[in-house]
């Protein structure tokens, strides 16, 4: 099994190299004068020249690339013009907010989509099946920022049951002691139920929005995979042996059907990480997405590029984790040397 993990790790390396190259090209291949971009719209000619030398933009491209890789290895992602802070530090501080949100959205999506897919597969062409298909198609058709706004309008403005979309926690509460950065975890570690609930309230709408978006591919894959499993030979044997329907559907069919669903999670993460940015803007969520958007408005480029790089690395890491997970839970792979 270890060799399988190592092999997967090795196959992720070319992707990482590709990411570094592409982000380098994006930072240096700006049309016009890159130094002017990094110096900012209000810079004088001398300031631009200073930036040029400071960032090494006067050297040859090859040398610049080596410098770039070296800086990355040291964890340096440049500085933000608007805040003056190192980008890497700001991203790190804001990362838990994004992760907490995305994880919750994913959990919600899986929690709804898998049962939906299972029910649709158990009753093909019934109204449940059609509802599942419509929900799935609508889920991908709705622009996620629109869904978010819709949620706010209905649940905050019309019904008044959701809090104002102003971030992770309402002003009356103070954030929990920072241990992990995840408010849900930290507030429980603090033993402060009030803060915990307040954090949950803020998380509900944005997580739901993300979840609705991710529902579709998961539900679709679960349904297709379950249909295939339910009509397989081994399920027929299980039925012929008189095993109870719960055992057959969940123990035999679903367990097998979930394997392809794991593989679809990679694509789901691609959607989610992109959608994260939009949701963070709609709900004023202080994660790395809104950090990048704020920087964009001010023509501050280093944060945006740092953001793209970090997102890509996270995504490669997630895909790797999914690959390894699949290899571990499918005995046909984990046991094959």
């Amino acid at each position, binding site marked *: 099994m270890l060799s399988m993990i190592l092999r997967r790790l090795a196959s992720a390396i070319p*992707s990482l190299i590709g990411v570094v190259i592409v982000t380098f090209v994006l930072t240096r291949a700006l049309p016009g004068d890159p130094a002017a971009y990094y110096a900012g719209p209000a810079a004088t000619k001398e300031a631009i020249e200073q930036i040029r030398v400071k960032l090494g933009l006067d050297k040859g491209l090859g040398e610049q690339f080596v410098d770039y890789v070296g800086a990355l290895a040291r964890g340096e992602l440049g500085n933000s013009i608007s805040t003056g802070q190192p980008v890497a530090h700001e991203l790190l501080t804001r990362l838990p907010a994004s992760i907490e949100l995305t994880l919750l959205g994913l959990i919600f999506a899986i929690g709804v989509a898998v049962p939906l897919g299972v029910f649709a597969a158990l009753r093909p062409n019934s109204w449940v099946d059609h509802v599942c298909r419509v929900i799935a198609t609508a889920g991908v058709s709705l622009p996620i920022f629109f869904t978010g706004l819709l949620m706010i309008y209905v649940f905050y403005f019309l019904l008044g049951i959701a809090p104002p979309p102003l971030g992770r926690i309402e002003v009356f509460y103070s954030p929990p002691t920072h241990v992990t950065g995840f408010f849900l975890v930290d507030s429980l570690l603090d033993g402060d139920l009030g803060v915990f609930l307040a954090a949950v309230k803020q998380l509900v709408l944005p997580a739901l929005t993300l979840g609705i978006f991710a529902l579709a591919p998961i539900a679709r894959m679960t349904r297709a995979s379950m249909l295939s499993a339910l009509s397989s030979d081994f399920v027929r044997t299980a039925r012929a042996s008189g095993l109870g329907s719960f055992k057959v559907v969940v123990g035999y069919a679903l367990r097998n059907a979930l394997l392809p669903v794991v593989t679809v999670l990679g694509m789901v993460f691609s959607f989610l990480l992109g959608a994260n940015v939009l949701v963070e803007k709609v709900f004023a969520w202080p994660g790395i997405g809104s950090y990048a958007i704020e920087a964009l408005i001010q023509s501050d480029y280093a944060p945006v590029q740092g953001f*793209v790089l970090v997102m890509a690395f996270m995504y490669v890491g997630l895909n790797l984790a999914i690959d390894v997970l699949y290899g571990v839970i499918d005995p046909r792979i984990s046991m094959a040397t």
Partner: protein
Amino acid sequence: MKSALAHARYVLGDNVVTAFAFGMFALFLVMAAVGPWIVPYDPLANGPNPLEPPSSRHWFGTDQTGRDIFSRVVAATQLDFAIAFASVALAFGAGTLAGIAAGFFGGWWERIIGRMVDTIMAFPLFVLAMGIVAAMGNTIFNIVLATGIINFPIYARVARAEANVIRNAGYIEAARIAGYGETRILFTQILPNIMPIMVVQISLTMGYAILNAAGLSFIGLGVRPPTAEWGIMVSDGANFIQNGQWWIAAFPGLVLMLAVFCFNLLGDGLRDMIDPRRRT
């Protein structure tokens, strides 16, 4: 051809939803083609009655500078469709050619194109589009380019898989023996065979391209105001939702959703028509 039409009618009759999607698509095409010329108000002109709710005078209401939202939504159809269409054409053209080359010729072609595809797919796609447009500036050309790049892998992969299958099938050898040159084989044998699958992909990708362009506009990386584009209209309207002025964001958002929905249904329907085995 006749049997293809008959089959199409059978599936359409069988599937009301797909017929409906075709109808919507036709309607959108008309809106895109003649929209800007038939709208009641100038989409870019400010008006005297800002923030007016939907009324008989302004069917979708007006926005914060008094512009008629209905006119803007209809006019935006042309821009959004044009962007989507151009990006898909780019992705399809480049992707299909690359994929066929990779699948058919193998060797270095396959390695290099494979690397390109893997590298693009190593990024969460929307984030990559953000990065490209942020780096190169938000012009419509760059939006089209970015959207085209992130959709390139899908076409390359499908084309490569199909070209691989066809390459190993007997009749390529037969064509070679008959003296057809490689390029001729490419165009007469491979291209027609992959077109059905590609058409399905195109329909699905159109929806995705529209969402992408709208998403970029929403975060300020898309078209610039006062251009009428669905995404930027929703972005503008977002500020007013909290005060209850829902119509500014709602109508462009709804129409956007309908357009994407229509393309998704269309794609599903086309997939059914082409290969009933693949019905999801």
